[in-house]
């Protein structure tokens, strides 16, 4: 670093420089985030107005866009509430299977020795290298063979199956952190292995369960590609298929309807996101969500 002379006022100048740097940082962040902010703002504004003038200026307030709640925009489309229930069913199904399966498997992998243990661990990592998306064709074949095409159960099983390796790794970490002594003392007191798992270990890994449950639920709620590929029957549509149909039918025309249904779909996500974003940020660092 070059030697600096301290003259009267140099501290002042230094402070001003710091302030300019800080302000430009804020300005840059705000400018860069503008597309995101405007995009999500549009969901709210667009849902309650007709077409916007000059892209941004709302003309009048209307609830007409929300008529899909009682009257399907197209006679071929299912009732929105049934669709809503399907979406919830899918998300809950993925969450339940993923949590139960990966928690129990992680306990065994973390605590017991058996032949093939390291192979199981390694294989879950290697499988991670095969992106789900390239397996779509084979999955289609398997579901067809099992007779699970056009059924939400097929999507639930596929999505849960693909998330289980991730769940096992996260939960194994949580189990590994619990000292052996705690489990030992329960066993010495006469608890069976299952009782130890159920009454002693599970309460201790609650944060981990909460984390993977949130992840599984969000993934199930947002599910898109498996759904539109495997499920065509309108009775099994979720909100993703519904919006996909709106985009397909009114690609560049009915923005009000698009915004309203999107907001309807986003609402639980936004709520969830606000409540759990700290938890999510912690887990994303360790684990990885599907695509990117």
């Amino acid at each position, binding site marked *: 670093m070059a030697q600096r002379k301290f003259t009267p006022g140099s501290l002042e100048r230094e402070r001003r420089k710091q302030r300019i740097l800080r302000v430009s940082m804020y300005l840059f962040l705000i400018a860069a985030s503008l597309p995101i902010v405007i995009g999500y703002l549009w969901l709210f504004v667009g849902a309650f107005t007709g077409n916007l003038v000059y892209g941004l200026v709302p003309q009048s307030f209307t609830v007409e866009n929300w008529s899909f709640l009682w009257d399907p925009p197209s006679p071929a489309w299912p009732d929105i509430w049934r669709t809503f229930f399907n979406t919830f069913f899918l998300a809950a199904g993925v969450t339940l299977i993923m949590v139960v*399966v990966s928690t129990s498997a992680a306990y065994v992998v973390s605590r017991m020795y058996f032949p093939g243990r390291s192979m199981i661990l390694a294989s879950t990592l290697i499988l991670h290298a095969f992106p789900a998306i390239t397996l779509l064709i084979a999955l289609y074949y398997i579901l067809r063979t099992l007779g699970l095409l056009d059924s939400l159960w097929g999507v639930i099983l596929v999505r849960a199956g693909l998330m289980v390796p991730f769940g096992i790794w996260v939960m194994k970490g949580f189990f590994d952190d619990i000292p052996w002594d705690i489990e030992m003392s329960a066993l010495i007191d006469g608890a069976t292995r299952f009782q130890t798992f159920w009454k002693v270990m599970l309460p201790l890994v609650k944060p981990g369960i909460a984390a993977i449950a949130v992840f599984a639920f969000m993934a199930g709620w947002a599910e898109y590609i498996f759904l539109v590929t495997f499920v065509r029957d309108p009775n099994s549509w979720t909100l993703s298929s519904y919006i996909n149909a709106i985009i397909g039918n009114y690609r560049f025309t009915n923005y009000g309807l698009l915004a309203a249904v999107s907001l309807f779909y986003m609402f639980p996500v936004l709520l969830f996101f606000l409540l759990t974003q700290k938890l999510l940020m912690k887990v994303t660092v360790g684990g990885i969500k599907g695509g990117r």
Partner: protein
Amino acid sequence: MFLLPGILLIFLFFLAPVVITAVMGFTNMDYRFQWNFVGFGNFFRMSDDFLVPKILVNTLVYTFGTLAIFNVTFGLILALLTTSISERVGLFFRALWLLPRFTPPVVYAAIWLWILSPTRNGLLNGLRVAMGLNPIAWISEYPWGVIIVTNGIIGASMGMLIFASAIKAIPRDYLWAARVDGASWFQEVRHIVLPLIRWPLMFITAYQTLSLLTSYEYILLITQGGPFHASEVWSLYAYNKAFSAYAGTYEFGYAAALATVLVLIGTVASIAYWKMFRFREMMAPPRIEVS
């Protein structure tokens, strides 16, 4: 007993598909689902496919363009800025950038379809009209730009999170020492932060390359690979060959072969990164135990 459901699920929906994809690539399976083996027929067909060179170029431009501009560079900028300003505001911006990642893909696509609408009701064209200009069909005029920006905004958040936590793990003493010596913010970043987060930078580069190679959900929703295959990437091409409603051919065999090639490309890329970035060193035990 505890393991069984886990093993069953992984086997049925992860391991079996890997094997089936590889085998299916050697058949000419279509909507009738018959296993007619055709040897390397699909791979010869690929080398003759007049679209394949174009798709390959698209894939490379999309993958490395998005990676270089957004997933690494922009992710790094976001991480640096949000860790340099006040903790709470930084957290707010990081949460904001994380939001698209948790938004259902259809909703995210809907937002962009509105922003990029070719009619005057979209955001960009609305602004153009306000300035007295004519609307532009953004998606068909700039397909590459569109897929890079839309995927990049989601992709940047991953790097942002990892870099931010790496930066926060740097001992404060280093930064204070530099500051006492009169280092400016840029010098601090250049000489202290960047060398110390070298590994996360390399990891994100390698990991996100693979992610981008195989992501097509948003492209399918926003440009559908068009106009005329201009933004169609390898993974989307495989998807379209198998499931496209327009072609209606359901060429599962050919599509599986395309998917297999993609996995091979990904494997080669990972090995190259492994060698280039000397990841083995990262795995090596530290020379001095500090605990």
